[in-house]
């Protein structure tokens, strides 16, 4: 088969996938691929479905709660056997709990940080404490999930033993990458109008935003890449699953979008110490858990410089920035990260398990 017909085939498949998502919807849980690691749902409430993945062999004392971003489905963390963060952690002896966020509906447009952090995450942590019979948990937060995890840890420090944040968007004053400019192009009034019009930020809008950031890649280069890597074992399966995940955008609740765009994005409230959640001021100095802040040096979605300030802002004595040469999603799916980064995270947690 010639290169052109092969690339055209991949492109057509991708175009149909996108068309299908625009007509039938993006990140519906029913469209998730089969789970790679078996789990049970132990708690459901608010916008949370809490999954439990059992440790392989004897479990460490402190369980791990995984918090993923709100705007895409979390199956990227359990993509396929051998390419799964969850599997990696359970094999290292961790009892893993993961929040599967239930997508917001129209009636959820008034959900903000307070509802997600003080209610949903708080209830999930409580469920883990009860289920596992422990006083404290370790939390791993990825991207926006890292931000939620950080806020929870600042507001409820007594429940968190260790906190690992990956690709954490923190300092919004950075101005290096295209996304730094693109994500701040909407004024406060514009954001308010968007929410007044749509209620929640629609998934198609989120999908379009991220595709616009790298048009060459999404229009042609990723399909060319698929063609050029056809002979790599397992690559095409991985490519298809990753594509599925790229189309798994979920609506972003109106209020939390406004808080993110206006308070965090425009006013940089978390860095300036003026952020409030549910009327309570967020004091990052109250974070006393051991903190590992993983920064992807090649991240083009969350500016690495945006994460770097964390250790200076929190009250923990045991804290570190951990730089790793990976991109935003490479930290979750690249074989290199699963071979080196996640064992390093596991090792760090194990040292602080007792």
């Amino acid at each position: 088969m010639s290169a052109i017909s092969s690339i055209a085939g991949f492109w057509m498949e991708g175009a149909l996938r996108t068309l299908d998502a625009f007509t039938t919807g993006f990140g519906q849980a029913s469209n998730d691929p089969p789970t790679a690691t078996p789990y049970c749902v132990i708690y459901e409430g608010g916008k949370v479905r809490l999954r439990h993945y059992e440790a392989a062999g004897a479990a460490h004392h402190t369980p791990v709660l995984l918090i993923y971003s709100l705007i895409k489905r979390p199956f990227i963390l359990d993509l396929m056997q051998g390419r799964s963060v969850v599997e990696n952690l359970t094999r290292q002896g961790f009892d893993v709990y993961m929040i599967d966020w239930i997508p917001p509906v129209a009636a959820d447009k008034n959900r903000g940080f307070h509802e997600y952090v003080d209610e949903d995450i708080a209830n999930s942590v409580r469920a883990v404490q009860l289920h596992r019979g422990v006083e404290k948990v370790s939390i791993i937060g990825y991207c926006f999930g890292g931000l939620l995890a950080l806020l929870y840890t600042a507001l409820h420090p007594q429940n968190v033993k260790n906190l690992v944040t990956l690709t954490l968007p923190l300092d919004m004053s950075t101005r290096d990458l295209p996304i730094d400019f693109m994500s701040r192009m909407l004024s406060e009034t514009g954001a308010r109008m968007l929410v007044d019009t749509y209620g929640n930020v629609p998934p198609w809008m989120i999908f379009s935003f991220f595709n616009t950031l790298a048009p060459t890649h999404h229009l042609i280069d990723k399909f060319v890449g698929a063609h050029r890597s056809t002979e790599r074992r397992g690559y095409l399966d991985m490519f298809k699953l990753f594509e599925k995940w790229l189309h798994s955008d979920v609506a972003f609740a109106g209020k939390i979008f406004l808080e993110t765009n206006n308070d965090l994005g425009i006013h940089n409230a978390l860095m300036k110490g003026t952020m409030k959640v549910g009327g309570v001021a967020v004091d990052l100095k109250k974070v006393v858990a051991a903190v590992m802040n993983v920064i992807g040096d090649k991240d083009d979605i969350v500016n690495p410089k945006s994460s770097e300030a964390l250790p200076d802002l929190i009250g923990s004595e045991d804290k570190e920035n951990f730089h790793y040469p990976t991109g935003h999603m490479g930290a979750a799916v690249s074989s290199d990260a699963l071979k080196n980064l996640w064992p390093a995270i596991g090792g760090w947690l194990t040292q602080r398990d007792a």
Partner: protein
Amino acid sequence: MSTRPQIKDASTTQPATMPAAMRSIVDIAEALMIDLPIAVTKRVLARTDERELNEAGWKAYDTIVKVANDATSRVYTNSIFGRVAGGAMEFAVRAQRLNTALSSAIFANLWPALGLPTAADVASMREEVSAMRAGLADARAAIALAAIEPVQSRIPRDNPRFDVETAMLSVAGGSQRPLYTGLAMPKGRELAEMKGNVSN
């Protein structure tokens, strides 16, 4: 063995002060006007294998993609573009709102006259049902959390799989909808044996 003349790395042949846009043009020209023609000529005249031609082709492609990516980044990091794009987005949202308002004004009187509910009626009904669902879900969540604790205290810690199943049933709160969606749940005889072990 390849006899293709080696083209020096662009960074060594171009002055360090060359503007980025100029460097992009030079890179593309180098790939399309030197590498590729040489490879094509050799393929035709010297009857070499296709590998070299493929390599030159992919090099040209990679250069073009890199230049396109750089150009996109330059556009996006331009503050004027940001202002224009932000303004365009706000304009689109305004237009959408105007469209919705006009449609509502036109059809608001027509629909009730035909005995049909308006979109606003349907939306508010939906919101009411959703709010009731949310209230119900919150109540169930509270019951579920309260239920885990006493169950947990009766179950020995050395049998986590049983804990999972028990907690899961607690969460379901006796409803018809099982919350289990995983693959590793003990079933049938295995589950009975586990329960037997616990009661013993």
